[in-house]
Structures are given as structure tokens and as C-alpha cells.
């Protein structure tokens, strides 16, 4: 999901999925994050970021 807005105080970020739906995501495990980053989100919690080297 792509980060739209960060609420660092509450450890949450407003994120947007590929299909367009938005959700509030817990970012405690990947902080700090910035708007525009792509996160891997499971059960409302960001587990990692899709920022490394792409495969092909």
C-alpha cells in the first residue's frame, strides 16, 4: 500500500491500496515512513517496505 499521510504521534499512516481503497495502517514496525513509500501491509500492520531492488 502507498503511504498518503503519516501520523507519527499515533504510529499510524493513511495508506492507499492498488485498487484505490484507503486504510489506516499501524506503522510501529517500520517507522520512520514518509508519504509516497510503498509498504507491505498485513492485518492492518505494515511489516516491511517494498523499497529494495526489484527482481527483473
Amino acid at each position: 500500500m502507498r503511504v498518503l499521510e503519516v501520523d507519527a504521534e499515533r504510529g499510524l499512516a493513511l495508506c492507499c491500496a492498488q485498487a484505490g481503497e484507503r486504510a489506516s495502517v499501524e506503522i510501529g514496525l517500520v517507522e520512520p515512513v514518509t508519504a509516497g513509500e510503498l509498504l507491505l501491509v498485513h492485518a492492518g500492520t505494515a511489516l516491511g517496505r517494498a523499497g529494495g531492488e526489484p527482481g527483473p
Partner: protein
Amino acid sequence: MKFVDEFRDAELGRVVAGEIVAAVEPGRHYKVMEVCGGHTHSIYKYGVDDLLPSNVELVHGPGCPVCVIPMGRVDDGIALAHEPGVIFTCFGDMLRVPGSSQTLLDAKADGADVRIVYSPLDALRIAKQNPEREVVFFAIGFETTAPSTALTLRRARAESVGNFSVMCSHVTIVPPLRALLESPDLRLDGFIGPGHVATVVGARPFQFLPDQYGKPVVISGFEPLDILQSVLMVLRQLGAGRATVENQYARVVPWEGNLRALEIMAEVFALRPHFEWRGLGFISQSALRISDAYAEWDAEERFSVPGVRVADPKACQCGEVLKGVIKPWECKVFGTACTPERPIGTCMVSPEGACAAYYNYGRFAREREVA
């Protein structure tokens, strides 16, 4: 979108498929297990196996969170849902998982307050909005969902939310893989490793596969091209007589995992000495319970649950599907008595279950092939 579209490129897919054909030895049959239900879903959805030569067989593994929950555990959840004053929360997939006499959906129809949540944090929110009620969250899943439960419990403690508790049924991926490799009825050549679990635990926990069993493993992403590339990487290792852990999904999976997640999980959870898996029986140290420090939020401490072991229905062959011993369509009740609308077994419930994935996508390709 970058990171997605390029991994669904059909032309690139055919190029990799050609490289796979070049990498296999004719006359040798390869069995590669995709551990994770997310991979199984993609394989059927995108017809990945249609691109593979006939001597490369993908075997579906036990990594579908809903599929592995035993019937007795579903009954425990239903018993909690029927407790007076309880709001019972769970992921949507759990609603239709059959218990011994009913599902959570039936319990809801009988008047139990069962609510679907997208994350455990939503359950905590419900608890804060309903201080006069007890809110229980049915936590399931591998190391991908356990961090979310752990963070939620930390929040519950920090905010002193006393009317919230978790029925913890989180499981871990390594012990069932070990159990599968020890079982005599399955011969596997290599593994497609679970990319999302590895985002949390890293690649290192899979090192036992090459070190102790001589099996190659490639941690893989979930797009069709990811899976094809990972199959190719496994085949190339086999061709070179090598066995090691490789990370095809390096754009997401750091080698060491998410250390912060591991730390929080170690604080909030403890290993259970053993846990029953649907169709696989009891596996030692394969599941998590709430740690003593968080016992106050443990639903099994707060309420009494039946905890009765219930045998799977006779017709159900989910155990064999989860072990990769049979394909979904080889189960006698597949598509007849057992469908996604009226499932008998768990593998037909979740989109990550091999039977549901095959029922929804794969059977059409197979019907074309057979016709």
C-alpha cells in the same frame, strides 16, 4: 504500477518459462512445494502451472492460516462467542470454517455477537467503544499476522483496555515443514519459500532446509513472474547440485527480517509445547500462546474454553491436501459435497486454501486440458 505490472508481464513470463524448460533434465520429475497459500492462490489465479513443463510439479504446502486451524479450536471460538456479553471478533474467512456442529456464522445467526474485523486493532477499537462488553479477538495466522496481534496487545496494555482479550491460535511455519520432510509419504525436491512470513522472520530460519535436508529454497514474491523466477532458481540449484537459501523477493524481504517485529513478538508471545494442526496432528513448538506478561489479555485465561480435540469428518482429506500428498480434485468430495458455499473442510474456505483456489480458478484450465 511499478512492482506489480512488471511482475505480471505475459511476455516476460513466457521468456522465464522457456528458461525453465531449458533448465530441466528430460526424464526427471521435479516436485517443488510452494509453502504459502498466497502462492497457491496466485498459481491458480494466473495459471502459472500451465506455463511449466509436465515434469515440474508444484505441490501445495501447509501455509494457509485458516486451513490449518483444527476443528476443536473452532469449537472453542464458537463457545466463547456464545458467552453472555461477549463481542467475538475475527477475520472474515473464519466465519465459514466448520466446527463440529456449527460455524461462527451459524453462531451469529443464533444470536451470538460475532463481528468481522480487518485487523486486531479494529477489535481493540470495538472494545474501547463498548466498555460494558467483553471483546475477544480470534487471532489466527503465521508470522505475518502475529506482529499485528502483538502490537495490538501492547496498545491494550498501554491504554489499560481491560475488556479486551485474545484467543491466540497463531502458528509458526518452520515446524510443519520439518514434519513434512520427516514424513515418508512425500518426496520433495525443493521449496518456494513464503515471502511475507520471511519479511518478518527473514531468510535465515529456512537455512535448515538445505543444511539438514539438502533441499534448495527460494524465498518468493507473489506475482506470477516472481513464482516462475523462483521455480527457475530452484531448478538451477538442483541442476548444479547445489542447495541453499536464495531470496528472489529481495525488493521486500530483508535477509534478517523485521527485527522490531521479532522483538515485540518475543515479548508478547511464548511457544506452546505442542499444537494441533488440521489434518497434520500435533506438532511440537509450532504455535504461540500469550506470554505470562500479557496473561491478563489472554481469552483462554479469562474464560473457560472446552479445549476438546475433535476428529476431522471422515470425508475430509484436508490433511492430505495440506501435506501435498493429493491434489484438491483428488479429494472424493471436492466440488460435490464440498464447495466454497458449503465447505466440509478448511481448504475450501479461504481464498488461500488449495481447494478454494483450485475450485475458483484452476479447474477451468484443467477441464479445458482434459476436454
